[in-house]
């Protein structure tokens, strides 16, 4: 028994996500994207969502499908515009979705801060650029920094490679990306994995996300989409 619950279906995994929630969605492009959880979230019907993710959807799958379903009020991301981000592009140009662009490293560090109980931090990224507008500036030891605040999620939806029955996670290659950080930054972390193994089968030295950060796990069949997009 542990607190992380292994559920039978992606639909069970996303049950209870409320309208208006902030949802952290893993993936860098399609690598690490929790396709099954997003499809289940579309079926589940929660709307007026704020999505935090590196991109704003690729092609017509995953996050792009959630956007196309009209469930997203606002996107915080580093790189919405890609070769295959037509769903987002159209919504944005039609004024149907809000966008907050956050430098990629700040996106990651602000979520880490949320997970680590840091109230705010001084960051050198974006100093002197349009993205510094409205931010508090401070000079420390001769370098200029901006004050950045945590980004906390009500839910995180992430993809990992394997979980053990306690909820410890390992990832595969660069599909790791935002998953471990988002898992720490959300009140409820929901994970899709390709396999579930017994506690003790993962090398304790190689666990990337300890079980304490994981609430619900669902095993899904591996689905791989063609990687595309300018970036």
């Amino acid at each position, binding site marked *: 028994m542990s607190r992380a619950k292994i559920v039978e279906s992606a639909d069970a995994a996303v049950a209870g996500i409320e309208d208006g929630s902030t949802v952290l969605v893993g993936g*860098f*492009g*399609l*690598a*690490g994207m929790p396709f099954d959880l997003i499809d289940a979230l579309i079926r589940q019907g929660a709307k007026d969502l704020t999505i935090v993710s*590196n991109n704003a959807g690729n092609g017509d799958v995953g996050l792009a499908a959630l956007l196309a379903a009209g469930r997203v009020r606002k996107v915080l991301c*580093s*790189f*919405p*515009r*890609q070769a295959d981000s037509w769903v*987002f*592009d159209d919504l*944005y*140009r039609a004024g149907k979705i809000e*966008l907050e*662009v*956050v*430098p*990629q*490293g*700040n*996106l*990651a*560090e602000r*979520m*880490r801060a949320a997970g680590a109980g840091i109230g705010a931090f001084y*960051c*050198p*990224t*974006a*100093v*002197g*650029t*349009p*993205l510094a507008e409205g931010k508090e500036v401070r000079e420390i030891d001769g370098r200029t920094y901006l004050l950045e605040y945590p980004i906390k999620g009500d839910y995180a939806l992430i993809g990992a490679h394997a979980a053990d029955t306690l909820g410890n996670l390992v*990832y*595969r*290659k*660069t*599909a*790791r*990306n*935002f*998953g*471990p*950080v988002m898992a720490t930054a959300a009140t409820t972390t929901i994970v899709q994995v390709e396999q579930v193994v017994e506690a003790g089968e993962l090398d304790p030295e190689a666990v*990337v996300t300890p079980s304490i950060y994981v609430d619900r796990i669902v095993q899904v069949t591996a689905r*791989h*989409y*063609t*990687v*595309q*997009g*300018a*970036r």
Partner: protein
Amino acid sequence: MTTAYTDHRLSMDELAAVIARDIPAGSFVNLGIGQPTKIADHLPAGSGVVLHTENGMLNMGPKAEGDAIDPDLTNAGKVPVTELPGAAYFHHADSFAMMRGGHLDVCVLGAYQVAFNGDLANWTTGKPDDIPAVGGAMDLAIGAKDVYVMMTLFTRTGEPKLVPRCTYPLTGVGCVSRVYTDHGVFDVGPDGVRIRETYGIDAGELAHRCGITLP
């Protein structure tokens, strides 16, 4: 001033070879999306240069082909790549801590404009219909010990992209130290611009077209 006249401006491949030659052996390097990725093909065997990709990997290998393509293994441009012996994976916060903390030796980026003082503009043209998208550009701009830019020196309409002051929205302030272009190589920074090499153009004419005061 080291001026190496050639009969013609360099192709982007030739320029990539020039940059590869200038990267010290054993360096940790991030190559930006687009043209800079070509540099990897020109690094000499045994250079010991270790490539970083912002999406969480050190010791990235060449582009993956055929069966080697793995959707879980891509570079920052989301192109499938391979891993070299001694690779390491890490999550995004760790990857950007590595950049922001100044641990990379060299980062090579593309640019819309670079100013004589090293200001960089490479993320948005600021046009009203341009969807803003910054990715890791601002993190990379301030994250490496040396930030190089690789670009064509002139726009299609003949305007220089190495400028006294950027007119496009900035990516980073005073962050670029060297600019590699098809027409020449320049040092930029707090002391202003200096021509290091020229290709297919006379240094005097280059200075004239870019508004550079020769010493």
